[in-house]
């Protein structure tokens, strides 16, 4: 199938090697364990494989058939056809990491443009070539701040309104790393914490304060005071952002962030059950040598022509080995390419328009739902794209009904914090129409009655 050898070619090759049988090439493998019988099903043809995979895929009910109000870290946006058409070029997807710049200028220039777009979107000076996802980018930001202070400031303060999965991942990376300590106001994600409470936790042991903007619940907090106080005490502050929101929202750069990380999935990457997604990390020029992961820089070739190379590689694991601050040796190359193409297609106008549509529609949905008897939208702060609804009954119960009506309801917040029983996190993007929103509100009302 994917092995092109004819019998005659195989025999000629064996003769050139000087052995009779392919089996003779494996004599170093202990006899007792050599050639185990694998209990896998027999191989099938491409036609049969496609049929089987199609059967699995149609066993799902997805946003392809349902109207989805589910977000909480992964969002359904419209992806222009050109994105997939371009990333599906073998010249991109079947290429290796661009370690050989003379024959990798396509990948390198695309990453360079990705870095530029992310820096401009976040209002920062530099960006790297990407991370696995938003959560691991957040963890790398923690490591970056820790190493910036050479381990002398062990404390990292994380807001309780950061996506709870990000906090889990940050703990897997950072809890127990040297003398590092992760500090939060509340153990579980909650709505009560204010930026002032984070300010109270600041001290001269703090390397980094990490907040989400808009936060996990869609709220846009005022971080001016927190940024000022963090800097006064000498700590850095990192923002976890939703890139769609930055189409219209004041940038973390304008607000004084030192590091900005986020999940790039909304930038032209399908939901795909949670991956592959795209983490991004942007910062100030002063911290560039502390960034983990790949960086692409501009240079010239022997004839003075502009070209691009991976740069500052001396920071990385293949050179520094155990002295490297991260073991990362890939980026989400193809996903970064998808995001670059998406951002180029939308451009200045499209990015603003999508953000604006998400903002309008979410507010319209919030207004309708807030009018429903027994439902209350918790909006003491401005919000973007996502909002919390207090429901009269259990959210799983409502979602079951919604599903029967063709809707994917919002996240049941009781799953992340029992104190938030009957609270639903609702997300609305540009793909949802006015009629969808009105029908959803109607379905919510009915679901709460049964």
């Amino acid at each position, binding site marked *: 199938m994917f092995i092109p050898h004819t019998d005659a070619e195989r025999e000629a090759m064996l003769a050139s090697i000087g052995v009779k049988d392919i089996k003779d090439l494996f004599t170093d493998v202990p006899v007792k364990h050599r050639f185990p019988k694998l209990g896998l099903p027999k191989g099938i043809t491409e036609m049969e494989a496609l049929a089987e995979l199609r059967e699995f895929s149609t066993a799902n009910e997805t946003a392809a058939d349902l109207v989805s109000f589910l977000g909480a870290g992964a969002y359904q946006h419209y992806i222009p056809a050109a994105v997939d058409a371009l990333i599906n070029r073998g010249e991109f997807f079947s290429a290796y990491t661009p370690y050989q710049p003379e024959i990798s200028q396509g990948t390198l220039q695309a990453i360079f443009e990705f870095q530029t777009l992310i820096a401009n979107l976040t209002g920062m000076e530099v960006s790297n070539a990407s991370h696995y996802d938003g959560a691991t980018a957040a963890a790398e930001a923690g490591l970056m701040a820790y190493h910036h202070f050479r381990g002398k400031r062990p404390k990292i303060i994380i807001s309780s309104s950061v996506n709870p*999965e990000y906090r889990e991942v940050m703990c897997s990376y950072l809890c127990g790393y040297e003398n590092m300590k992760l500090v939060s106001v509340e153990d579980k994600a909650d709505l009560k914490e204010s930026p002032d409470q984070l300010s109270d936790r600041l001290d001269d042991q703090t390397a980094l304060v990490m907040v989400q903007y808009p936060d996990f619940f869609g709220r846009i907090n005022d971080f001016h005071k927190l940024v000022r106080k963090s800097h006064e005490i000498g700590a850095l502050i990192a923002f976890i952002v939703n890139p769609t929101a930055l189409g219209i929202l004041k940038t973390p750069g304008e607000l004084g962030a030192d590091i900005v990380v986020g999940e790039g999935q909304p930038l032209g990457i399908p939901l795909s059950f949670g991956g592959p997604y795209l983490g991004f990390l942007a910062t100030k020029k002063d911290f560039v040598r502390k960034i983990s992961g790949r960086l692409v820089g501009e240079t010239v070739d022997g004839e003075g022509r502009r070209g691009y190379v991976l740069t500052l590689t001396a920071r990385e694991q293949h050179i520094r080995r155990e002295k490297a601050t991260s073991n990362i040796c890939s980026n989400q190359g193809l996903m970064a390419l998808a995001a670059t193409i998406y951002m180029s297609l939308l451009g200045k106008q499209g990015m603003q328009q999508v953000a604006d549509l998400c903002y309008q529609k979410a507010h319209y949905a919030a207004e309708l739902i807030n009018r429903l008897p027994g439902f209350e939208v918790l909006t003491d702060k401005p919000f973007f794209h996502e909002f919390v609804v207090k429901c009269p009954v259990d959210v799983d119960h409502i979602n079951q009904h919604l599903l029967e009506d063709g809707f994917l309801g919002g996240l049941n917040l009781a799953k992340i914090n029992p104190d938030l029983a009957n609270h639903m996190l609702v997300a609305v993007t540009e793909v949802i129409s006015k009629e969808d929103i009105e029908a959803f509100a109607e379905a919510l009302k009915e679901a709460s009655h049964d």
Partner: protein
Amino acid sequence: MTEPTLYELSSPGRSGVRFPKSDVPKYELPADLVRADLPFPELAEIDVVRHFTHLSAMNYSIDKGFYPLGSCTMKYNPKINEVTARLPGFAFTHPLQPLETIQGNLFLMYQLQEYLKEISGFAAISLQPAAGAQGEFTGVKIINAYHKSRGDLKRTRVLIPDSAHGTNPATCSMVGLEVVHLPSDARGNVDLVALHEICDDTVAGLMLTNPNTLGLFDENVSEVIEIVHAAGGLVYGDGANLNALLGIARPGDLGFDVMHFNLHKTFSTPHGGGGPGSGPVAVTSQLADFLPSPVVGIVEPGTEDLPPLYGFTTPTMSIGRVKTFYGQFGMLVRAYTYIRMNGSDGLRRISEFAVLNANYLLSKVRGKYTLPYNRTCMHEFVVEGVWPEVPDIHALDIAKRLMDYDFHPPTNYFPLIVHEALMIEPTETENKQTLDAFADALLKIAEEAHTDPELLKNAPHNTPVSRLDEVKAAKELVLCCWLPENE
């Protein structure tokens, strides 16, 4: 050949995509929350398509030619994978949907877990890690957590052979463990004498790549593992070179305790110009409770009329979550497709022909290039890219000159224990004619090195750009496009 940047192509007022006008009443974002400017390029769809098509033409890729990168397993990426991963039922699934709506995905993941366990000989697995390096991080954290859970707190050292990938030592540092370097012996195996001396009750484990980065199957692998186990340590298997072992030997049977897979190497998911990868981690039954959460399992057994309900479980002593959601799902669909199409026999053929191709290529260049370890190799081999009579020619020059012959260079200057290393892995998907042409190019270059060394020193000559000034790049650090507004 240079391509203007997106910003240079931009023309104010253009847009590549239109969205419907808002159909809901107007809501204003408070003015103090609105960003100043969005310095993004403005391009029509055709501008974007041409730009990226031009860029793609400046790339080397598997679809274009042979990629003999050692330890990278640049095999052909079947097109069907790209079709199955994009089926709408997969591509449109939100990760937080109710279980009953995602049974197709969960069944696929469950089956893939079973297949990978069977292929590797391990008892339990997590598909969550995003890439090989993250798989290593996960695996070493599991080893660390295992010792700590037994109150065995003094195990802080990890043994790493001198032929190991850089990720191995970097991983140990991330987990907070100390690296101890382990020498190789004259045949390229782990040095047993040194291993005996180092192994004591402070050893958390050994990270072993087998076959190693010299392309050699460790002749004493069973003994190596026994020595570490006898000292109370665990053995981590770096799965980078698993393409040599499918149906040949199962790392679990050999005694390894933990191993990561690289689905983007062994199981044909594309490298994507640097990612996404996918690095599932498999373990023995004694380590199953430490796997990252969640793991896919059966949460309600099936009945006569109903299939089982698949869902997520959290291992009791889990090291935690290493990534959001459940892994690089799109890569899992591709790997599943590949394993299903191959089946048990097909998988064994993959490794057999990968090893055949490597040994064939080796047979063609033996004598013209110095072989530091003259043994039967597995799926790859290492030669020295230097000749004493032309000391100015280095492995790098050979690598660059290969580009003029339309080949991607082999991995070079790695492993570190071979002087001027060129590490060559042909994979099973290359035919004899390609291997012959590549061997001819290597032999021709060996000749050129002696007759016309300048040809190598200035190579490549036929690429979109020539050798790039890396010192200038690092010194000036231009990391973003020039923005017209700034001038």
